């Protein structure tokens, strides 16, 4: 299938993006962000899962949780360019919300098949807060690194072990958990209130999200909880991986663009030595470099989205490129955004630290730039 020249980003897709810009612009304004997560700076305070619950209800009403769900499963069936655009807007406001976790989970679940899958997608569409628990004990980036053990017990399954680095796990009502048995990796829907499940929030740097560790101690689930059978789990995850990388990359593109615009604005207004900072090329040129890096990352994100929809055989190649470029872009833009703000940029009161921390977090999520490049070379050179 030929790839659309416009990445599949036409009028309908633009309408969703523009409405997201408007809604998140209002509900995720910098003032609201500061108020929500910029409170007590104490690094030792108990971790919290902070988000605007009424705004989440409206997001569900707007249909964004149904966006990536295929029509046959009761969703809206919008393309990947729309999902990327939405993630870009979320990142552009460092918007704390269950939305990214919902999208990531959806993108995995939709690659499965069967009745349980459709049921779960239906619940996600209706606003059930979900999170992806696929990372094992050691936090390895390989998508099949899960270390939870699965045992069959009559008609049900029993899950035991740890799942770590669960993004926005503190907000979730249900987890999609990857677990291992002799037959391979399976995917299971585990309610947050399941008996034997303990959810502990990690003490993390980035406060625009939360992160959890799941401890499953003999969690017993009915057959209806099996989303992907043991033989199918790895394949489902691998098929979904390009989309996961694309969403995280898009989030970083949005956040990096915020860093670019905010740092540019500061370089226009702050004066030293009788000139605005941007007059000095030691400030101007690195800001331009931020833009050069962001544009490559953004183009690769939409190329990946387009490949996922139209040319799946190229999806991993483009998604690895997008995540590689976006990870390095996020690191570079974060670095410059604080440095070029000078003293104020180093303080808690300056907003740049929210985006700095979100980008640094996403840089390593599902693998950093160097890791993505090593995977890319497997495709290019074997």
């Amino acid at each position, binding site marked *: 299938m030929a790839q659309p020249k*416009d990445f599949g980003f036409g009028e309908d897709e633009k309408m969703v993006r523009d409405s997201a810009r408007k809604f998140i612009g209002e509900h995720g304004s910098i003032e609201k962000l500061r108020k929500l997560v910029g409170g007590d700076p104490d690094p030792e305070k108990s971790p919290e899962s902070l988000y605007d619950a009424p705004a989440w209800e409206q997001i569900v009403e707007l249909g964004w949780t149904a966006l990536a769900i295929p029509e046959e499963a009761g969703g809206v069936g919008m393309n990947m360019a729309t999902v990327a655009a939405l993630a870009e807007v979320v990142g552009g406001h460092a918007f704390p919300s269950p939305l990214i976790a919902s999208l990531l989970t959806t993108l995995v679940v939709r690659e499965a098949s069967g009745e349980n899958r459709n049921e779960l997608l239906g619940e996600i569409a209706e606003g059930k807060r979900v999170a992806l628990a696929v990372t094992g004990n050691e936090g390895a980036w390989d998508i099949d690194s899960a270390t939870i053990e699965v045992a069959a017990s009559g008609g049900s399954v029993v899950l035991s072990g740890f799942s770590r680095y669960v993004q926005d796990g503190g907000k979730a009502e249900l987890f999609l958990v990857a677990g291992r048995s002799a037959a391979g990796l399976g995917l299971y829907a585990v309610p947050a209130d399941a008996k034997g499940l303990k959810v502990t929030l990690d003490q993390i740097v980035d406060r625009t999200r939360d992160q959890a560790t799941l401890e499953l101690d003999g969690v017993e689930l009915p057959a209806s909880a099996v989303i992907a059978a043991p033989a199918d789990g790895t394949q489902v995850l691998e098929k979904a991986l390009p989309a996961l990388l694309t969403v995280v990359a898009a989030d970083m593109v949005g956040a990096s663009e915020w860093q670019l615009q905010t740092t540019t604005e500061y370089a226009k207004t702050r004066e030293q030595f009788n000139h605005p900072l941007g007059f000095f090329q030691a400030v101007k040129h690195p800001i*331009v470099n931020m833009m050069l890096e962001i544009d490559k990352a953004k183009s690769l994100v939409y190329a990946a989205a387009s490949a996922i929809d139209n040319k799946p055989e190229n999806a991993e190649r483009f998604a690895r490129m997008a995540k*590689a470029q976006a990870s390095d872009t996020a690191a570079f833009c974060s670095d410059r955004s604080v440095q070029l703000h000078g003293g104020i940029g180093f303080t808690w009161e300056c907003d740049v630290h929210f985006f700095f921390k979100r980008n640094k977090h996403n840089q390593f999520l599902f693998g950093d730039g160097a890791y993505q*490049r090593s995977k890319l070379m497997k495709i290019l*050179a074997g």
Partner: protein
Amino acid sequence: MSQAAKKDTPEQAEYRAYCRKWIEENRPEEPDFRLPLQAIEVMDEGVKEYLQTWQKKAYDGGLIGVDYPTEYGGGGKSGMQTIANQELAAGDVPYFINVIGLGMCAPTIFHHASEELKRRFIPQILSGEMIWCQGFSEPGAGSDLASCNTSVVKKGDKWIVNGHKVWTSLAHYAGWMIALVRTSNHDKYKGLSFFVLPVQDTKGVTIRPLIKITGETGFNEVIFEDLEVPDSYRLDDVGKGWTVAMTTLTHERGAGTLVGPNTGMSARGATRTQRLLELAKKCRRNGKPAIDDPFIRDRIALVAVWEEGLAQNQRRAKVPGLTDDPMRIPLQGKVSFTELAQLAATVALEIEGQASSLYIADPMAPDSGTWPLTFLNSYGNTIAAGTSEVQRNILGERVLGMAKSK
């Protein structure tokens, strides 16, 4: 290519088919000499004639200047040069020698010259019968182009030219030059005017080759001593030289209204990534194939990501919904592509390791020594036509709106 072809109008599709067939039937014989990497490096009379004959043939075939009006020797169409360029690139044919003329002189003359000059000069530029060069930079005016100081003074109904132009590519073969000159010292910008000047075997003009760090020539210095020219050689009004120069530079940056004919040298053959992968399979590094070295693998992947990122930038530049500022990507082109080329050459030397010491004349040099040559040459491109630093100023000021740097 097939992707571009799918969007063709019936007229474009017909022209594309014509170009394809023409190229198939008129492809020049493979030369028995090494073609330099770029047209501006041609130093040999035989090579020059080979390329001039090829350009004339392609012009007569209707593949050059197709978007220019017929009265100026063009094809009288619009939006067709891009199609010819795509087919020429896909056809893997040699480049055209009159690159400066086609890319910069003809569009500048078309937009700013008198009817008489347009009729006289545009056809010979398109056909390649007359080679043209561009006289902008001077020893004292590089990045700060508007400080150029070649003086042109009115004497009766003539103008007298005195000054010194440098980095003048192809001047050694050129008959004519487009020149940015100073007609007044009262104002830096409004004191500039624009002329076409005869440069070959002309009294008052001396052309000397400058040797690049590669050891090859490829550009010249041109010295004017009391050259006399008529007023009819002036483009636009006296004092409008900077405006005219902007037209030239816009076309040089590939953002002009007239698409220049080109053979897509960068599209010739494989992508940079593919060439590096091939090189890394051939070369050994530290006792094992370079392609198995984790550092080399990371470096090649970096080039691959950058190269694809720029390709996808070109695709995204045409999607208004995904570009909040329409000039943002086009203005990045020069700095991005020249720095990518430099990175790719840098990585190639890393892949070659010790063998990167072997230059073009060494029989043992990998890829015939073209990588050290490309690496050296890459600095020409990050410096010429507005250094990378000037490009970053332009981006910071025009796109991001930061204060103008001095």
